[in-house]
């Protein structure tokens, strides 16, 4: 099968080099004492010091994180109920219509989402700023939460719910003790995806942000248009580490829910053999 393993692995290595060169190039020059991204003249922490004493950037970072956290929380709650509602519909046609509507924002290009939200806010007379950005982020995060939670809801065995009610659980108890724990892995993934979407978004925010309020992506855009400043390089290094932590965190969340499921399975099997 693998006639030329060398060529194929060389090719893959090349692809990885291409993927990572720009990122490490940025990080490398964030330590450059010379003020540009061309000649490395000496090592310095100076750009990191500038970054961490830059009040404006720090406020923007906090705003960006706040938007990401709030929007993903709200989107998770709305989206989870949305997923429960979609799967609760009896007619398959209704379900698929709802799902199509749900996916419209997933397939639309960012520019369309941004432009149409801008029209929406303007026609409703809502001022642009923190509020409009937050609402937009909630809006484009909801469909992904639904898509992450829905498979879990569909897996839910109706016998479980019947059993809970036969055993005298109230509706609220069934909901909190049976349904929610079962679909928690989906909810967590949904929250996580919503969080990263919000952090990553540029185009939609750019349209609805107005003058007073800025997120990190928009700030990087306006600074990059003015040319190179190694403070952005330092920022990118910090963000790379943050992304790395997020990926690792997500990986472990998944591992955790998977291993918990496996443990449960093992428990079930053990019980069966005991009997």
């Amino acid at each position: 099968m693998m006639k030329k393993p060398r060529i194929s692995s060389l090719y893959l290595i090349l692809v990885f080099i291409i993927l990572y060169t720009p990122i490490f190039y940025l990080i490398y020059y964030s330590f450059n004492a010379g003020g540009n991204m061309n000649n490395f003249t000496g090592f310095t922490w100076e750009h990191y010091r500038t970054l961490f004493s830059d009040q404006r950037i720090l406020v923007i970072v906090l705003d960006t994180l706040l938007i990401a956290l709030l929007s993903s929380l709200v989107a998770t709650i709305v989206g989870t109920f949305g997923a429960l509602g979609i799967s609760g519909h009896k007619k398959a046609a209704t379900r698929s219509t709802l799902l199509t509507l749900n996916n419209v924002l997933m397939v639309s290009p960012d520019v369309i989402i941004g432009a149409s939200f801008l029209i929406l806010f303007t026609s409703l007379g809502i001022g642009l700023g923190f509020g409009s950005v937050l609402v937009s982020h909630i809006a484009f995060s909801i469909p992904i939460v639904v898509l992450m939670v829905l498979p879990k809801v569909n897996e839910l065995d109706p016998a479980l719910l019947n059993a809970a009610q036969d055993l005298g659980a109230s509706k609220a108890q069934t909901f909190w003790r049976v349904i929610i724990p079962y679909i928690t892995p989906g909810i967590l993934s949904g929250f996580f995806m919503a969080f990263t979407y919000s952090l990553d978004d540029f185009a939609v925010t750019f349209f609805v942000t107005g003058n007073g309020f800025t997120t990190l992506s928009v700030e990087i855009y306006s600074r990059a248009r003015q040319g190179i400043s190694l403070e952005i390089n330092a920022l990118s290094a910090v963000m790379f580490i943050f992304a790395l932590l997020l990926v690792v965190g997500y990986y472990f969340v998944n591992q955790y829910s998977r291993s918990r499921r496996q443990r449960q399975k093992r428990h079930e099997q053990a019980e069966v053999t005991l009997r």
Partner: protein
Amino acid sequence: MKKSKQFFMVPYFLWIALFVVAPLLLILYQSLTDGQGHFTIQNYLTYGSSSVYLKMSLNSLWYAFLITVITLLISYPAAYILSRLKHQQLWLLLIILPTWINLLLKAYAFIGLFSRAGAVNHFLMFIGIGPKQILFSDFSFLLVASYIEIPFMILPIYNAIVQLDPALPNASRDLGASPWQTFRLVTFPLTLSGVKAGVQAVFIPSLSLFMLTRLIGGNRVITLGTAIEEHFLTTMNWGMGSTIGVILIVMMFVIMILTNDRKKKRREVLDDEKATH
């Protein structure tokens, strides 16, 4: 139960009405009215009779096509090799990681790499070609856009290749097909669904990458996205901007119909990938 459930569903339905249906209607309405709110198809007439708009749209399609072809040529072999490795989950994670880095930062990195005295020009001088103006050209826009889209092409193709039953290519080989024949007649047709999903994931966003045309293309490349952004935020001609938006939406539907066998978009494709970890 029913009633309480419906009560909790209210925000979700409100969201569908306000943020899915209303924006689409509004953008259509905006494109069909003039400044005073009177119905008019003037915007569409202007669009259809202006060589500037038509050329821009064709150009945008052409660039999106080129970006899709470049990423496909790079990604298919990469996905194929990936599917034959040990520790695939780890390698996949490494493919996904760059997509978690803010797109603006990656674009910014290329401003440094491609600048007049940047690393790429150093390399060109070193191999004797001499420095070239790379930044702010359509060439650099193609390169950077392809760079950004590569992971979104690799992942769906990889998924399709992994799902392919290895017995099929083996059988083809046993029956005397050459490796090239096996690839052309068995492996590729059977992984076409992944290619289609990847094309969808790359082509549609490529029509609207306005930040790259600004930062890397130096306004030499105008995509549909750039035009929309300009009409909405610079010239404040929302009617025309919405018209181009409607045309972009129509193109999106055409592409989705053409590549319609698994309705997946980049985000979903990626999420599937992330979800499997």
